[in-house]
């Protein structure tokens, strides 16, 4: 059980390009990803949209496993800026968990 937090997504959107909500959850990206990690990238976006911060944190390693190869992005039917979105999530984790300054 988790309570939806509508503020969280605002903290994640690091640039005007962040567009996780455009995702229609088709799963094409996860199927194509060479890393073969279940939560990457679609589920990460769902967690962000619902504001499930703990889920995002739990998946820190997965978020950093992304190669930013954009294999997924090439095929996304909803034009989700997947790599950019992943970068935003990384930036948030860097700041909040690893306490690194803004890049």
């Amino acid at each position, binding site marked *: *059980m*988790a*309570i*939806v937090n*509508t503020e969280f997504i605002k903290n994640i959107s690091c640039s005007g390009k962040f*567009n996780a*909500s*455009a*995702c*229609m*959850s088709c799963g094409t990206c996860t199927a194509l990803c060479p890393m073969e990690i279940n939560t990457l990238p679609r*589920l990460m976006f*769902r*967690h962000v*949209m*619902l504001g*499930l911060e703990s889920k995002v944190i739990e998946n820190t390693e997965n978020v950093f496993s992304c190669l930013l190869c954009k294999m997924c992005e090439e095929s996304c039917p*909803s034009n989700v800026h997947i790599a950019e979105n992943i970068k935003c999530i990384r930036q948030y984790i860097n700041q909040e968990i690893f306490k690194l300054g803004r890049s």
Partner: protein
Amino acid sequence: MSTDRKIGVFICHCGGNISDYVDVDKVRDAVEKEPGVSIAKTTMFACSDAAQQEIIEDIRKEGLDGIVVASCSPKLHLLTFRAMAERSGLNPYQYVQVNLREQCSWAHRSDMQSATEKGIHLVRAGIAKAALCDPLTDMRIETIPKVLIIGAGVSGLRAALTLSDLGLAVFLVEKSDRVGGWTGKFGKMFSQNLIGEEVIEKLLGEVKQRENVTLFTSAKLIEKSGRVGDFSVKVQTRNDETISLDVGAIIVATGFDPYQPAEEEFGYGLKGVITLPEFKQLLDGSNGEILYEGRKIRDIVYIYCVGSRQDEDEESSNLYCSRYCCTSAVHTALLAGEKDAGLNQFHLYRDMRTYGKQELIYEEARIEGSVFIKYDDYDLPKVEYIGDKLRVMVNDLLIGGEEVEIDADLVVLVTGMVPRENDELTSILKLPIGLDGFYNEIHPKLRPVETVIDGMYIVGTAQGPKTMAESVASALSGVSKSASLLMKGYVDLEPFIARVNTEQCKWCDKCTEACPYDAIEKIFCEGKEVASIIPSLCKGGGACIPVCPEDAIDLEGYTDAQIKSMIEALVKDEETN
């Protein structure tokens, strides 16, 4: 049975559809010696132009006075072969079709021997019927170039205008005191953001200028009789006056009712839980931020499929999808977002059915930040108050079914359409109701506005849930159906009506009671009272026939003698081998 008839029998392979499972040569051999049969042949495709031409030549050469084509269902080719008979000079009603495909070969693919035996019996019965077929002539009815439209919503108004354009007179009867139906109550509608009220005003303005359209408001239909091309109806108007009208066709455009959730269904009745139409009203009335009972709204949760696609295990469930609601909810969310960009909107759906171009607004809504959460058909979201907070609990299938809870300022139940309660009208029109409770068409895809009653059409949401654009398309389809019927000036009806043997009839009056169409009257004939059939009213239903104690009534095309001889042929013992 001996007969001096000359019957031709043509047995079709239907490519292999029939002959792969029924030995058609064996069937031909078995029936060619039947009494009355002059010629028996097989053919690869009886419906092909070449085969029809050959049959026509056989009819002429052999001087045939009856033919049997053993092929597919009469639904497919009865009219084809009747026309062929007519071209050959044979009376079209001396043609009999035997269904050797749907009712034999396709049904018995695993047992060729039995299928062949059954085929022989079926063809024999067809021959027995053909031997007793007399020439009949169609009944020609002059059609009245006027149309009655029931319901002056967007469909009814649009249909009235288009019929008027075509030069047909229209009587438009509306039950309530205002026209426009539901569309007239709506603000901006998808997908072109037309304003419902304005759409109606424009249509009504045009209708009022047409001399050949008569609009009755606060009026209802109280009586209907007659048949295709020639109906008589009575309309009760505002001042309880009764007006009699004669029309050639009837278009039923009575619309829908919005689903009204039960108390406590998804929290309905709790403060902050409202239906989609209620929310649309709230939106139409607000400028800038959206207020509900004086409080500013920030978080909205939509629950989709309320009143539609319900659990089939429960009685009186609505099993159908209401089609318009996904799109309407998404469009409404976009409108809400335009008023207040700070809103958080969550859509709890089962399947997004924003089909066609409406997909674009689904995409737009996602880009604008609406979050879509998928719930399971059998695991519905729950709405309740936790303290003073309205909370929605849902298991989100898109994150593997895990439960999430959303605090909402407003819960919008995306309600579907239900059939209008119209029992009185339904019984006057004698229109059949489909499984979903809406008026029933003949075929949802091939004949969507036609009904089993010739000359009566169902359009718009009276036939089933539709968007406004779809309703108008369906109204126009009803227009083209009725106009093509009426602009010809006449209809030819199959002559399959009852006939009274006046010698046998003793006028006991039993048949008049049995006839649902009031098609039997008393006349004097050769010094006595007898029953007589009114051809324009008789529909050939045959209700009068079994009740007649004197066996004085027969149905053309299905006479007792024909049916009996068919049964005898079906049960006849034989040596097929």
